[in-house]
């Protein structure tokens, strides 16, 4: 019998959407081996989330009440470890997240489980559990297996699996977590300050121009374009060195990264090491460059091989 156990995660009263996606993955696995899908709702008030997680395919919801209102690594680790030791699932799924980065490896070590992280595919091949994840900065994929491990813990990548859409009617049980005092102490949450838009390190949407812009007089039309897109304007070194834009707009200033940025449009930027250092972690990079071999195209999610002025002109026309 190969049961699949999904562990929930929440922050300040909001459940992570990846939990339901993990349930979707659990269903597929459970079907392959005729196992049950168990979902552990973990927190100081687990029953609040039970209805949300009573999805089609879930056989049992296990409410695990903890003596901590928010995530604490030791408490979560010991509770989940105790639950695994009691129910002995074949596979344990957690969202790949900041929280699971904080406790899943410790859990795996303590329980001597099979373990890997950030998987976007999982299946059985015969009796072997096989998990797929990326390698070499998404350039390759690997399949991993877990010889000799009767329980495997996996953290799953958000957006890789489909959450069940319909509701189900699982049974609901409770599990008493061991009483534990966490060793670290939560002091406070600090919300980000509202940025004046002048701080690129806080900007979520950035349009950046590079030496393709060629002339100071061409800069203003890209400022206008950024305003029309409601993006902050950034630039590469030569632009700021020439005084065409102020230094705070330079991306890749030594050590500073545009860490809050979600979408980065790079126009006429080839992708020097200095510039890439500042923006390569942005999840959605759109690069526009005349040169199909420009190195920025290899880190971009979307690329346009073309003239930045033509594209800017078209964007401007279509945005008004």
């Amino acid at each position, binding site marked *: 019998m190969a049961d699949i156990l999904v562990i929930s995660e929440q922050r300040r009263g909001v459940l992570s959407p990846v939990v339901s996606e993990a349930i979707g993955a659990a269903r597929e696995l459970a079907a392959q081996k005729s196992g049950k899908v168990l979902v552990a709702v973990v927190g100081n008030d687990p029953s609040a989330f039970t209805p949300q997680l009573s999805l089609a395919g879930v056989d049992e919801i296990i409410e695990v009440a903890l003596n901590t209102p928010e995530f604490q690594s030791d408490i979560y680790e010991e509770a989940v470890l105790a639950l695994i030791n009691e129910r002995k699932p074949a596979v344990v799924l957690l969202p790949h997240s900041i929280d699971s980065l904080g406790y899943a490896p410790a859990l795996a070590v303590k329980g001597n489980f099979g373990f890997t992280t950030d998987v976007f595919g999982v299946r059985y091949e015969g009796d072997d559990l096989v998990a797929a994840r990326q390698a070499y900065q998404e350039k390759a994929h690997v399949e991993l297996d877990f010889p000799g491990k009767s329980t495997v813990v996996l953290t799953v990548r958000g957006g890789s699996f489909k959450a069940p859409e319909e509701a189900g009617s699982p049974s609901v049980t409770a599990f008493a977590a061991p009483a534990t005092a966490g060793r670290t102490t939560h002091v406070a949450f600090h919300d980000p300050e509202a940025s004046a838009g002048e701080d690129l390190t806080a900007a979520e949407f950035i349009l950046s121009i590079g030496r393709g812009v060629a002339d100071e*007089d061409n800069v203003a039309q890209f400022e206008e374009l950024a305003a029309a897109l409601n993006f902050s304007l950034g630039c590469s070194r030569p632009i700021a*060195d020439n005084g065409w834009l102020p230094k705070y707009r330079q991306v890749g200033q030594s050590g500073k990264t545009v860490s809050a940025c979600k979408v980065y449009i790079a126009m006429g930027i080839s992708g020097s090491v200095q510039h890439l250092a500042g923006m390569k972690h942005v999840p959605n990079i759109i690069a526009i460059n005349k040169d199909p071999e420009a190195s920025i195209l290899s880190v971009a999610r979307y690329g346009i091989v073309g003239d930045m002025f033509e594209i800017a002109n078209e964007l*401007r026309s279509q945005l008004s």
Partner: protein
Amino acid sequence: MQFTALGDWLSSQEGSFNIHVAAAFHEVADDEQRQVLEASLFATPRARLRWAGEIYTPPSILEALARRDEARLNLRLARHPRTPGSSLLRILRVSDDPGILAALAAHPNSPAQLLRDLPWGQQPPIRSGLAGNPACPLDLLYTILPETTMVDRKRMAAHPAADGALLQKLWEVAGDDVYLRGEVIANSACPPGLLAAALASDVPLIRRKLAENANVSTQALITLLRDPVPEVRAAAARQVPSEAFEDVDCEDFNTVRRIKARRHDLPADLIAQLATDSDSWVRRWLARNPAVPAEILAALAKDPEREVRRGVARNPACPTDLLFQLARDPEPWVRAGVSFRTDIDEDLIALFEHDEEIDVLSGVGRNAVTPPEWLERIAEHANADVRRSVILNPRTPRYLLRRLAEDPYPFNRVCLVKHPAAPIDLILELLADAEPQVCFTAATMLVSGGRKAARKQEAASSSEWKACRRSQVTNSEISGENAHENPCAG
């Protein structure tokens, strides 16, 4: 560097070279010296792969790699923008890998005969490569046209060699693809008959592309200036003779007014009206416009928007008394606009003696009239980008350059070796720098005529701006004779 000096360097290395320096010297080395360098450069398969993929690899090395006829290298070589045509021919002779053939089809250095020899009939990616390759001859475009996709045809419609007849054909096969038709209309070789059809088109995109065509008639522009769609009017406003502009009152779309404010041939009464426009972008464009008279600039220099005031500071025709006023502006970005000007004198730069803002300091650091004692201070600034402004200053004294050669930020040292006054012995020292980009650049500078070549390379890479059809303004970068523009790759 003369050959004898290169020979000296080679023998001084006792057989183990800094490979980045070796790569830079390869180009000027003779055959015998090249063999010695290649023994180090090409020692392992990994090293060979790296050179084939590195963007700054000189053509002579790419050529040497192509002569090895190694299949793994050839894909990288076929994609490398600097691989010479003769090497591409050689690669074709030994390759049948579809990826390599597609790369050859797209390579701008591929000779016409190579392109004709490609098996374009069997492989769609080859046709796509050809359609977008500026080196593809016109007759070959005609030949492949029947089997191309719509995407390929769009590339063809923008092809530099496309003539009226090809464009006519493309218009006909476009059917209801308005985007392809739009590209045909935008092409300056578009036949007059199609231009006339475009004027009467009920598709706004096509009328807009007509307004953008370099050869559109004045009459058509005047008609398009009154088009019901604002984007079409804005496009027409770029090129139409300024006499065609009537009262700006009837133009209620800011996008069109902004285009007008950029025109250097704007009539005086229109300038006066736009100077009080409620849209700050209109006023910004006007502030930078060299055709705007002094009294209007004086008014704009007092604008509540800092970007308008900065525009005045950057205006080539800004009178000196206004510059003095703007040098005292409360906004650092406005003051920086003055500090970066290359036409100011010592009296004006003196106003910045105690200014600590990094944008202003960067301008002062780069300025040719800044006293050396100030440069010394700026050269010690905590911010690496501010320090770099001194490195980019053509008048920075040699002793200061020597100090700056110790700068911890590698990119600053790269810029240093490119300085026109960088002493030779300093550059020779930097051949041994820990950072590959620094040693390679130092070596490039030493190679005979290296500095001229580097400047040529800067000019060539900014030939993109020459291709810019949109810019109405010629290069009015104020630093005129200063050949140290855009010195650093970014």
